[in-house]
């Protein structure tokens, strides 16, 4: 097992995610992030601990509440923010936004918007990677995802085929408005156990505890012993999505939020780092985020004429909307200027 990183490293990751999300909320308010976001504030300890336990070449499939995963894996905050603001400088050239990003340079292969299905994709990815080496795949999903058939099917496949995949459940107590106990008969860990997958339930608010549990699961996968599931109990302080700031939904009590705030991952980790070290980290993070916001907002907006780029690997004539003005000839003479072609720059 790799050595657990220093306390200050976890603190820095959690602080970066926390402040990044707060900046994002500002950018949602100003209209620069048009989609809104699914903030992960309160859950940063899971992202920090899980990602620290991975090798840079391990592959992670994220989900809709994924900003923390990207930052914890080392995605460039400026390019990531440029993605959320729909700019060409974004990690996905502005094609993903907040909901579906990927950043292969940081080992994040995507975030399926179909809740739970990333687990099945990660299973296939882990299977493929294992044929050529000892990389491990990780799927991160919420408590809502464990009722999705494709996810349960992937538990079965991963266990049958001993795939090196770690299933990480961030159980934040709710799937949008549905309390986890109202959506999950039995338990998250019990569902994995039913498929012969070792599963544990672990405190997600303490990044060092998260790290230890995750490192054991990763070791197991890398050692050829197949999948495991770790359920991290955690909490989101914010609404499901920033739309909840405009729309009060009475699915939980303020007192409950306050109780969870007492186990804040930022505070837990701050207590382990000397104040002067913390202050230096905090100051550096503000600089990084100032630069990130500048980079994002200065990055050009995409050219609408490029909307079909990356749609296909091979040139396909795209008709309709912008691409074929009424009256355009059916037979293009080469790639004439009146036609746009779906083309990859990759």
């Amino acid at each position, binding site marked *: 097992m790799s050595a657990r990183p220093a306390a200050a490293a976890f603190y820095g990751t959690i602080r970066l995610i926390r402040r990044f999300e707060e900046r994002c909320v500002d950018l949602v308010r100003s209209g620069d992030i048009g989609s809104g976001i699914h903030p992960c504030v309160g859950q940063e300890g899971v992202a920090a601990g899980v990602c620290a336990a991975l090798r840079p070449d391990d592959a992670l499939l994220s989900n809709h509440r994924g900003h923390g995963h990207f930052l914890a894996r080392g995605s460039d905050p400026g390019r990531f923010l440029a993605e959320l603001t729909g700019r060409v400088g974004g990690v996905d050239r502005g094609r993903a936004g907040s909901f579906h990003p990927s950043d292969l340079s940081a080992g994040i292969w*995507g975030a399926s918007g179909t809740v739970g299905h990333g687990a099945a*994709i990660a*299973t*296939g990815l882990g299977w*493929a990677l294992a044929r050529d080496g000892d990389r491990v*795949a990780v799927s991160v999903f919420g408590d809502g995802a464990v009722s999705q058939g494709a996810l349960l*099917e992937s538990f*079965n496949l991963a266990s049958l085929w001993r795939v090196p995949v770690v299933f990480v459940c961030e159980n934040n107590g709710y799937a949008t408005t549905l309390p986890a106990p109202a959506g999950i008969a039995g338990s998250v860990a019990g569902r994995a156990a039913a498929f012969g997958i070792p599963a544990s339930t672990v405190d997600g608010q303490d990044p060092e505890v998260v790290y230890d549990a995750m490192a054991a699961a990763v070791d197991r996968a890398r050692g050829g012993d197949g999948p495991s599931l770790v359920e991290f109990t955690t909490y989101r302080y914010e609404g499901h999505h920033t739309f909840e700031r405009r729309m009060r939904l009475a699915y939980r009590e303020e007192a409950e939020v306050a109780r969870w705030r007492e186990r804040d991952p930022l505070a837990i980790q701050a207590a382990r780092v000397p104040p002067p070290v913390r202050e230096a980290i905090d100051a550096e993070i503000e600089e990084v985020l100032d630069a990130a916001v500048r980079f994002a907002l200065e990055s050009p907006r995409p050219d609408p004429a490029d909307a079909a780029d990356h749609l296909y690997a091979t040139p396909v004539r795209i008709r309709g909307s912008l691409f074929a003005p009424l009256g*355009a000839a*059916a037979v293009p003479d080469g790639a004439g200027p009146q036609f746009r072609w779906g083309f990859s720059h990759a």
Partner: protein
Amino acid sequence: MPKLSYAKALNRALTDEMERDPDVFVLGEDIRFALNNVTTGLLDRFPDRVLETPLSEQGFTNFATGAAMGGKRPVVEYQIPFLLLLVLEQIANQANKFRLMSGGQVKVPVTYLLPGTGWRPGWGAQHSDQPYGVFAHLGVKTVIPATPTDAYGLFLSAIRDDDPVVVFCPMPALALREDVSYVDLAPIPLGVGRVCRPGDDVTVLAVGHLVHDAVAVADELAGEVSVEVFDPRSLHPFDWAGLAASVERTGRLVVFDDGNRFCGVGAEVLATAAEEMRLAAAPKRVTRPDAAVVVGCAPELDLAVQPSRAQLVAAIQAVVKS
């Protein structure tokens, strides 16, 4: 020359490609026993590249997406066409979008093989769909080979393509045999149609197994009208230029399509012809009816919803007269 069956052509394409490219693997249900004759002999030759799956179509369709992202070229075999509707979301909304969403960082070269789509005599409502139009509509690359040679060439190209491709093999075509020399078998590019029978008076665009019915009808009408039969071979991308070149000469068009009428391939071809091509007469289409459901196991009911040769004859005669 050997007689190559359509099913054998699929088997040969897959075997050849697995031989050539160690990243190709196949997964599906009962494929060890090659119930559809596609995977015959593969388990012996490539024991670790034949993945027998449990009945978890959504799970293994996504599994294929992940494996493809990880550098493999999965071929997923589905036993029945309705399974495609069960995994429609995984193909159209996930596999087909990851390249775009990642700004070109990942590719998803999965082939979805349907050995046996459309009407199976007596199999009734749930086992006889022909949903190729749905995939073309959603922008998933879709091919439908009519002949053994095309089955070999298009399946091979689908596997080599860097995007997801659905390969529809119409049930009535599976038993077809063709005199071919194996050395002539070659990949056929997606999006390139074929004039199967030249003619001057009317273009019949026929899809899948209906190509053979269209050729038979063209032969039957030979003394009366000169029919050109055009097989698009892939529905997305579609060979608009090839069709336009044919219609340019004949000035008349009939579409012969085994899909449902509403929003079907026939509708798209007619609309495009009306917008972009010079037509001497209003075009027509012969299709399954709106909302077609193949009924029961009485042949009279079954056949009532199949596009027929008689309907094609009538459509050709009407288009030529006007």
